């Protein structure tokens, strides 16, 4: 039966060419090839996000009057609604975590070096889109924490000269965080950003397919080629299954919280914090003094973080040694500094 379906499809689609491609595609096998799996795991979690997000859309109502109530309905009345929402929340967190692991491993293995500069840049853009998805999704339950965290988060661009006020208004859909902000964030979360993500993801995967997997500079011997299909795919499938087990456990033991409904006229609660992946930036801005050499501290912090982010994206073009296939200890050291800063400030922000 399967053979007959394959034959039917083969008469209409270039299945033979795809089969040929799959049979020849290989992945280099060496001591660092375990890091190859994190990109695929992030992709798997993105699929889960799409599926669970689509299910949540069946009940979610994007308005200030109904958002919180609809999420409460999902959590208490809809069959397995709690599970769908909890998996959506946890797979978002895990996806960002695996993206960080994927990005830092790519950095330290210098996999961004020529000719893969565009793969790195597209990956950075993907991470940025995922940040946007996380930030916009955080507001959607319309609870006290998400409301005030969004109010603080959308206030930050105000320090940008000339365009700051416009950016804040553009993000909020007005002067303050209101129901208009919620509608706007909903549109970003379920339509605009996913469409952008799929487009850039397609490019990212196309670059990888065109250039193959990078072999670290330190691996001198020619690595053993591992057939992509079925050997690498089976390994990836095992990683996905283990990620699924982790996801199910987190959802069952730590279901997503709902909190109290946002009251825009109430005082902001104490100890407001953003999602964990924004904590390093939040804590950095918090630690800065009001003014530094006559410049507003927060403005200076936003400028410094933006500049650091830009340099991070441009690393493949700045690291000339690795582009020549030579070791580049300076960039390794910079990567260590960036990692220590990110982890350290995240923990500091979490504890304080």
């Amino acid at each position, binding site marked *: 039966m399967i053979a007959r379906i394959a034959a039917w499809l083969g008469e209409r689609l270039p299945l033979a060419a795809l089969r040929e491609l799959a049979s020849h595609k290989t992945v280099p096998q060496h001591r660092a090839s375990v890091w190859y799996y994190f990109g695929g795991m992030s992709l798997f979690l993105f699929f889960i996000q799409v599926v669970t997000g689509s299910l949540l859309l069946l009940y979610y109502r994007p308005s200030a009057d109904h958002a919180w109530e609809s999420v*409460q309905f999902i*959590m*208490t009345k809809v069959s397995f609604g709690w599970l769908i929402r909890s998996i959506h929340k946890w797979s978002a967190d895990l996806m960002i975590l695996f993206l960080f692991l994927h990005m830092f491993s790519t950095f330290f293995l210098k996999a961004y070096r020529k000719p893969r500069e565009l793969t790195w840049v597209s990956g950075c853009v993907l991470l940025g889109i995922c940040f946007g998805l996380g930030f916009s999704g955080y507001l959607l339950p319309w609870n006290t924490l998400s409301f005030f965290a969004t109010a603080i988060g959308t206030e930050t661009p105000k320090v940008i000269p000339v365009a700051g006020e416009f950016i804040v208004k553009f993000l909020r859909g007005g002067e303050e965080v209101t129901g208009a902000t919620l509608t706007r964030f909903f549109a970003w979360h379920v339509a605009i950003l996913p469409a952008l993500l799929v487009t850039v993801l397609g490019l990212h995967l196309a670059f990888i397919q065109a250039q193959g997997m990078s072999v670290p500079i330190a691996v001198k011997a020619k690595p053993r080629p*591992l057939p992509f299909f079925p050997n690498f795919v089976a390994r990836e499938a095992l990683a996905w*299954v283990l990620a699924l087990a982790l996801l*199910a456990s987190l959802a*069952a033991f730590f*279901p997503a919280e*709902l909190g109290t409904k946002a009251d825009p006229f109430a005082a902001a609660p104490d100890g407001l914090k953003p999602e964990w992946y924004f904590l390093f930036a939040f804590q950095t801005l918090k630690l800065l003094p009001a003014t530094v050499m006559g410049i507003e501290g927060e403005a200076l912090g936003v400028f410094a973080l933006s500049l650091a982010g830009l340099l991070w994206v441009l690393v493949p073009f700045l690291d000339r040694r690795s582009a020549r296939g030579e070791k580049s200890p300076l960039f390794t050291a910079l990567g260590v500094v960036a990692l220590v800063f990110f982890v350290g400030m995240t923990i500091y922000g979490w504890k304080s």
Partner: protein
Amino acid sequence: MRAILLPAILLLLAGAARAGDSCVPCHEGLQDPRLSAPVKASASDIHFRRGLNCSSCHAGDGTASRKEDAHSAAKGFRVPRGAAAVESCAKCHSDAAFMKNFDPAARTDQEAQYRGSHHGQKLAAGDDKAATCVSCHGNHGVLPVKDPSSPVYPLNVPATCGRCHGSAEYMKGRKIPVDVLAKYEGSVHGKALLGRGDVGAPACNSCHGNHGATPPEIASVANVCGTCHSEQADLFRTSKKKANFDENGIAECVFCHSHHDIAPPTDAMLGTGEKSVCLQCHQDEDDAGFVAARKWEAGFRSLVGKLEDATHVLEKAERAGMEVSDPLFRLSEARDHLTQARVLIHAYDAGKVVEKLAAGEAVAVAARGDGEMALSEIDYRRRGLYVSLFAIGLLAVGIWFKIRDLDRKLPPA
């Protein structure tokens, strides 16, 4: 005529003081603090800030450079004390036309109220220790009532009254207790006012009055308490107990709640235990009041227990990550029933209290049921997870064996 002349004279005097008041430069250099302190305090005095000066109360000649001329009896110099102090203050504060120059809504009935107060009556009877205006407001450095440093600002009133009424030595020979300040400080009202700084909480003057201060008589106690606790007062007035209390000359509220040392009411005030106030009248076990008190106490204890139980179960479910905000919110409805039942006691209508307690219990029991369901849902989820993990584990093991099998078929490196 007086209404026109008096302000004109006072304003002229104020103008003269500004032009060349000799009181301040002379007195502030004196060694005796009794004579120098008054002028030093005048800078913050509300009267000075509004243009009055020393002569406004002391008369004499404030422009004279010699003491003999300034303190000239011919020019009316005086140091008003006792009844003279009241008259001195009333000269302006009872004059509505004059006071309108400073505050169109100013009260001018203070003197009349004072004359009718216990303080005023004692003073009229020749008791020179009786409080006058300056006893509470001060004389030099008088501050507006709304100034937090004023001795008559709500937070400072108990201490101001307590200066006399808390002093055994000052009150010696009088048949009134001097432990009232200490009792008040430990009371629910005192803790609210002095502990939490709640200026809405009653101070001494809230019940006794201020200028017309007098102890409320038995018949008026309920009216005094009822100004704030109106619901309880209304219920009591329409209850069958009202007539009993009146016949026996019992002061309504204070009989159960006391007065200066009013403690926060508890359910233990009901029933037949040590802290029961019902036993003051209903000591016989066959007494209908004794039976009702025991029944009410049991009812309240039952509802409070069910509320605590439901809260415990729901909080346990919430800590485990369950969404129970709805039943937790509904518990506040049960708490409202409890509060309403406590208020209804003042109607002495067993049926109404029991009905309210039953309504509260029904809500608490339903909320607990929701909590129990949430807890059993947790167990269900955990069991579901273990089954899923087992299936996922089997799949993972299967894939692992498949990988080994596939790798074995690879050509040697």
